[in-house]
Structures are given as structure tokens and as C-alpha cells.
């Protein structure tokens, strides 16, 4: 009993000491000139998880991932489908095996993503809410 109590105590302390995500929220963004103003969560999931890559305006959707270094990436998948990055990786490893569906394109940085978004009208990305600016259009806020 004493042992369990001690373990619980240590766990609690550990949790408190974890670095709090500085991310206030994750914003799904598209090309500012896109006619798409809003995407549903399911739309975002279909696009990012490779099921149905088409925007409501009929354009083929092209998802873009942040690099793993960006804190917003795991936050995005956590908020979107409730999975950590390992699980996401395991998912893709099975689909990649068949070669039929590809994972989102990997952007080098937030800036890189912004550029790609501006360059591709069908591109869909995401970023920390604090990083959103006029160069992108937010279509869904994930909290």
C-alpha cells in the first residue's frame, strides 16, 4: 500500500513537471484565396488520413504536415483523432506498404507550409493558432 501511494505521488509530481504545451490551439488553414471558408473535422480527417482527398469546392485536397520538431504537429493529431505520433506513424506504415495512399506531404517548417499553401490552391495545412496570419485562411480551429 505504501508502495502504491508512493508511486501515485511520484506520477502526480511527474505530470505536473511535464512541459505544458505552449500551443493555445491548432488552426487548420488553407490558401487564402481558396473558396473554401470552412472545413468540418471529418473533412480534415478524411483529407489528412488519406481516405478522401477532395475539398468541398471540388478541388483535390493536398494535405501538408509540419515537421515533427513543431509542437503543433502532435497537438494537431491529438486534437484531431486523439492519437499520438507513434500511432499515426503505425497507421501510415500499413497503408504505405500497399502503395495506394500516401501520407501528407512533409513541410520543412511553418514558413515552408505557408509557402506551399500559397502555392497550391488545394493544399490544407495546420499551425499553432498564434502563428496564423493573413497569409493563410483558417477554416477550422481545433481545441
Amino acid at each position: 500500500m505504501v508502495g502504491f501511494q508512493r508511486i501515485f505521488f511520484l506520477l502526480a509530481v511527474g505530470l505536473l513537471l511535464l512541459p505544458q504545451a505552449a500551443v493555445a490551439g491548432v488552426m487548420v488553414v488553407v490558401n487564402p484565396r481558396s473558396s473554401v471558408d470552412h472545413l468540418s473535422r471529418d473533412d480534415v480527417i478524411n483529407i489528412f488520413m488519406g481516405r478522401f482527398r477532395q475539398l468541398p469546392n471540388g478541388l483535390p485536397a493536398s494535405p501538408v504536415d509540419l515537421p515533427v520538431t513543431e509542437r503543433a504537429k502532435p497537438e494537431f493529431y491529438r486534437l484531431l483523432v486523439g492519437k499520438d505520433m507513434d500511432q499515426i506513424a503505425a497507421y501510415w506504415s500499413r497503408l504505405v506498404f500497399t502503395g495506394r495512399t500516401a501520407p501528407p506531404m512533409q513541410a520543412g517548417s511553418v514558413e515552408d507550409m505557408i509557402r506551399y499553401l500559397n502555392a497550391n490552391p488545394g493544399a490544407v495545412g495546420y499551425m499553432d493558432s498564434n502563428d496564423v496570419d493573413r497569409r493563410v485562411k483558417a477554416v477550422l480551429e481545433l481545441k
Partner: protein
Amino acid sequence: MTRIWKRSILGGTFFAVAMVALVVGSLFVMVTLKITDERATNRANTRLMELMASAEQTAAIACFANDVTLATETARGLTLSSDVLDVAVISGGRELARVFRKGARQPPGNVPLPGRLVAPLYSPFNPSEKIGELRLDPNLESIRATVFEEIRYVALLLVLLAAAMVSAVAAVLGVLVVRPVKTMSDQLHVMDAGAGERLPVPRGHEESELGRLAGDINGLTGKLVAAAMKEHELRLQRELDERKYRAIFDNVEAGIFLVDGEFRLKSFNPAFGRLMRLALAERYREIAGFRLSELPWLDGEGLAALVNGCLADNAARSDDLELDLAEGGRRWFNLVLRPVGEGLAQGMASDVTERRLAEQKARQQLVTDDLTSVANRAGLEAVLRARIEAHASAEHTEFALLLVDLDGFKRVNDALGLPVGDEILRNTARRLQSCLYEEDVVARMGGDEFAVIARAGTGEEGVARVAERIVSVLNFSFLVADAPAQLGASVGVALFPGDGRDVPTLLRNAELALDRARANGGHRCQFFDSSMAQAAQALRRLDTDMHLAVRRHEFRLFLQPIVNLLERRLVGAEALLRWQHKERGMVPPDAFIPVAEETGFIREIGLWVLEAACQQLALWQGEGQEYYLSINISGRQVPDGLTPAMLLDATRRHGIVPERLVLEITEGVLINDMVKAQSWLAEVHEKGFRIYLDDFGTGYSSLSYLKRFPVDTVKVDQSFVRDMSDDSSDRKLVEAVVAMAHSLDMQVVAEGVENATQARLLRDMGCCHAQGYYFSRPVPAQDFAAVAEEITRRFALEQ
């Protein structure tokens, strides 16, 4: 052919164990196989489910991403299992992929196969969103084959196990139980217990139930052998006893037999045959049906009653029965029957003819008078009872009872002796019989009294004729020892039923009539009438009263002075008995003295008188008076009622001299029994008592009495004295008596002197003493002193 398992316990045990094991094993195997089947099937199902679960995630991803290749690969991976027939991945109703196991037979069409397993597929990112399903058809043939293989294996194991267990159990049972039992059984089978052999205890079983069984069997065997030996001994003893009893049965003198309710003789001994004078043929006639009732019994009903009574009441019975035998005449047999069960009675017969005859004779003697051979009193009473009984049921059976008394027999008997008396009695019986009818009965009642029962069919006259005839035939005179003797008869008659309806009444009434006949002088016949009974009753009452009178002190002595005429003085008194009856007042002596004499009570009264007289004399002696006192003696008191010793005793007790007491006797005393009276008188006189002869002149007045008896004084009866003054003959008579007395040196007392003339006449003729009303009536004792004074005074005046 007996089956071995029925003959041998060993074979039987093995067979039974095997059969039981087979049945139980089969059941067990069936249950086990069933369970194994289910478990194997379940296990296959579980395996398939697990297989599906392992592929579910990948299939879901394939579905989510609509990746046919991934789906196909996933399905193919599943079909690698031999249990799987085919796998399909359905996405949104569309078959994304379907793969059949290689080599497996492809089912036709799209029909769902039995046992198809379906697992829903959910979106990897939204567990609540169903995006397809995974279908799996199990390879049933393969699964069955696996299950069957397992079952076969298990069954084999079980059968082997059962066989091994059965063998083991049978072997253990055989060694531990069956073989010892079989051994014991075999040994017991051939064991000769009578020769002392015993069952050995199986080795190693000394303490077990088998050991105890062997011990018990041996114990029981011992007891059985002992019982058998005892039985044998008893049988020997019984045979011995039976021979013994048989000998007794055959040789005993009494006839022994067994008889049943039909009188059939079941068995009888030789003595019975001899007793019953059975012909030889009958003696050996077998039990088959010779009946006891075939014998010539005189009283067949008596025999039937005896046998039936014995068997019906189940109680011993005995009776004497008479048999009219051809040889030997009539014989009496005493039969004693005792029930012995099974409707049989054991009887014993003995010849009791002698005893019966003796009894008959004894009975006859009981009712017969030895002397005269006529009936005695008991016989008479028996006849009377029989006649009275007969009267109740038949007409014209009236009869008369005559009691006959021989007058004067006692005197003759006394005078002539017993042999003569006996001859007279025998003669009387013969004479009585001679004047009677055949059916009339003569009996001797005792002494000289006879009784006759005569038929009274012709009425009272007929009876009277018979009675008169009796009186006349018994009026006989005869010579005995050269002296003529005269006898007569008195007859009292009582008629039945008029004068009494029972024996005692008849006898009493006839006796009363006889008494009357005797009282009337005898030589006559007297019929009973009711006044006799009344008189008798009055007498009885009087008798009772007299007895009471003594206790109630109702008797008194009255004293009548006796004077000396010559010396003119009082010399004594005569004591006279008076009875002051409680209810009837003064009872005159005439009314009770004769009765008292009749009953003998006069003796009691006499003793009382003696006592009272002595008291009076003692009183006078105390007063200095020298009076004497005379008491009257009855004939019944002499000689035993008032012996000289009694007299002497009384006077001594009161301290008086005998000379003061005078005993007055009458001629009757002397006549009754002259010899005894004479000796009594002599003795009394010799003791000093004076004797007066009372009532002189009224009876025989035989002068020889005066000569023979020691009489001191004669008392001249008052009847002479009373008429003396008028009748010169009476005067001369008294004068003669006085003269005669004087000449015999006796004194004279004149009784009944009533006047001065008589007194003077008596004095003139020299009569010394006198008593009578002239001097004084009899007075109570307490008044005597006054009377004495008065008389003394009168004598003084006369001078």
C-alpha cells in the same frame, strides 16, 4: 448348464465388476465425449475469433482507406489458418476483398455459410463509426476432423483407464475377499461337523469380518452339533419312556381308552377289553369305528352326556354307568373322561360294582330300621316328601299319616328286658303290615313309636277304619316268662293335605293327635284337629314364658302356716309356688305345673323352690323361729332332678339342718319308677330330710307304700276334711287314717281346714297338725310374720 457367474463367486465377481465398469465406463465416455466435443468446438471458435481480432485493426485501416490491396492481404493472412474457409472484408456494403483458402472447396454463390463469423469494423479514428465488417467462414470439415481426433484420443484413454481399473479392482477383490470366501465355502461344503471338523480362518483374516464369520460359523456349528446330539439323546429317552408307558398301558388293571365325539374308540388297552368283556374279534378290530356306545349300556343317554359334556366343556367328567354284560351280568363301571385335545377324550374305566352295591346297601340301611326291617324315620320322611311331591302332579294322592304308640311298652320292656321288647317291636311291625295295603308304608320312628302312611282315597272314614283296625290288632296280650303282658296302641292321625302340606307339619300334627289319644287313656285313635295345634301353641308359649319367668323373678313362694292343733301353736308352713306373670297376672299352679312337668322344666323350678325355701328357713333361723318348711316334689324331679346331694348342698350353704326341710311327695312319684324312687327316698330320709305323703286318700293310697317307703307324715287331702262335718263317712275315714298313721308311728296333717268345727273335730280325733283357710291363706313370705303373730294371738284367745 449353469452359468459360471452363478456357480462361482469368483467368476461372478469378475463378471459383475466388468459389467458395472462397462456400463459406468460407457456412460462416462459418452459424457466425456460430449464435453470434449463441445470444448473442442468452442476452442476452434475462440481460435477463429482471436484470429479475426488480430486482423481486425488492419482490416479496419484497409476499409478506412479503401485500400483493396491491404484488405486482400489481410484476408489472405487469415486464410492461412486451416480452420478458415474464406474471408471477406466488406466496406460500406461493398466487398472490398474476398479470399478463399487454397485447396478448399469454394462454396457456391454468396449464400451465407453456417457458422459464419462476422466482426464489425470501426473507423480507426472514431470508434463509434462503423465503416465495414470482416466476414469469416470457418472450415467446418477441418474443425470437425480436429475435434474427432481429440475425441478419439480421449475415448481411447478412458477405455484403457477403465480396463486397467476394472482389472485392478477385480484382482484386489479376488485376492482380498472372494478367494478367502470361496475357500471357506469350499471347505465348509466338504466339512464334516459331526466328526469334529471346524472351518479354518483364512490366513490374514484373523481380525476381519471373514475371521469373525468363520468363528461364528464354527460357534453355530458347535451349537447345532450339540443340539443334534441332545435331540438324539432325547429321542432315545423318549423311545425308552414310550416303551415304559406302553408297558404300563398294556399291563394296568384299569381300562384305558381314547374316544372321540362320535364315541369311536381310537385306542384301548387290554384291560379295557377284559373289563368290557369284548369278544376277541372286537378287541382286535382296528380303531376303524368300534364305538363305545355299541356296548350294552343301560343308560345310553348318561354315556352320551358324559362324553359330550367332557368334550364340550373341555373339562374332566366322571360318572358311574351300568353295563348289562352277557357274561357276568350287570356291572357298574366308573368312567373318568379327561379331554386331551383334538376332539379326543382319554378315559379310564374301572369296575365299581362292589362299591355301588355297598353304597346301595348303605343307602338302604340309612332308611331302614335294623330291628324291624321296616323304614326308619329318615325313610319315612323320604317317602312323605315323595308323596307330597307326587300330589302336586297327580290326582287322588291324598294320604294319611298315622303315628302309632304302644301303650305300656316301656313298662313291659323294663320289666321283661330288651330281647322281649325287641320281639314285641318286630311283632308290632308285622301286625301293622298285615292290616295295610300293598302301597302303604310302615316305619319305626324310634322307641315304641311307629308310623304308617296309608292311602286316604276312601276319605276319613276309610282312614278311621284302618286306624281302628290297627288299634285292635295291637291290642294283644301274650305270655312272657309265664306272665301275661297286655299291650295296646294309641294312634294319632294327620291327613294330607288337609292337616299339613309339608313333612314337619304333618309329623307334628300327627304327634299332637297321638298325644291327645294317649292323654285320653290310650287304646284309641285320634284325628288331628286344629284346636290341638292351638293348644300346643299355647303350651309352647307357656313354656317360653316359664323360662322367662325365672329370669324375670316372677316366681314367688307363698307360705301357708301349719299348726299343731294339740299344742296350739304354729309349727311350720307349706311353701306354695305362685307365678306373678307380667301380663297375665297371677297364673294358677294348675295352669303351668303340668306343662313344666311335661317339658322337664319342673326341675329348674324345683331348684328355684329349694333355694327360696332354704333362704326362708335361714331367715327364720336368724330370727330364732324354729318353723319347718315343706316343699312339693314332682315325680319328674325324682331321682335325678333333685338328688340328695343337691338337697344337702342347699341346706349346708344356707346353714340350716335338713330336719327343717320337708319334702312333700305324691303317690305318683312312687308309682313312676318304684325302684329308683325307693332308693331316692331312703337316701333323702337317711340324710335327715322329712318326707310327707301328700294328697293321701285320692289315688291308690296303697297301704303297702306306707310300709315300703320311709314316710314321716301323711297329709289327708282337703276333700275329706272339707266334708267331714256333714258327712260322717268322711269323718270316719279321716279318723281311720289318723288311727292308722299313729299305729304306723306317723304324723298326720289335715289339709283344707276352713272352720273352727273342723279344727275341733280333728283335734278331738287326735290329728295333730292342720292347715287351711281357717288358720290362714297362703301368704307372701314377708307377710308370714304378721300371720304367725295373728295365729298365736288366736290360740291364746281360744284358751
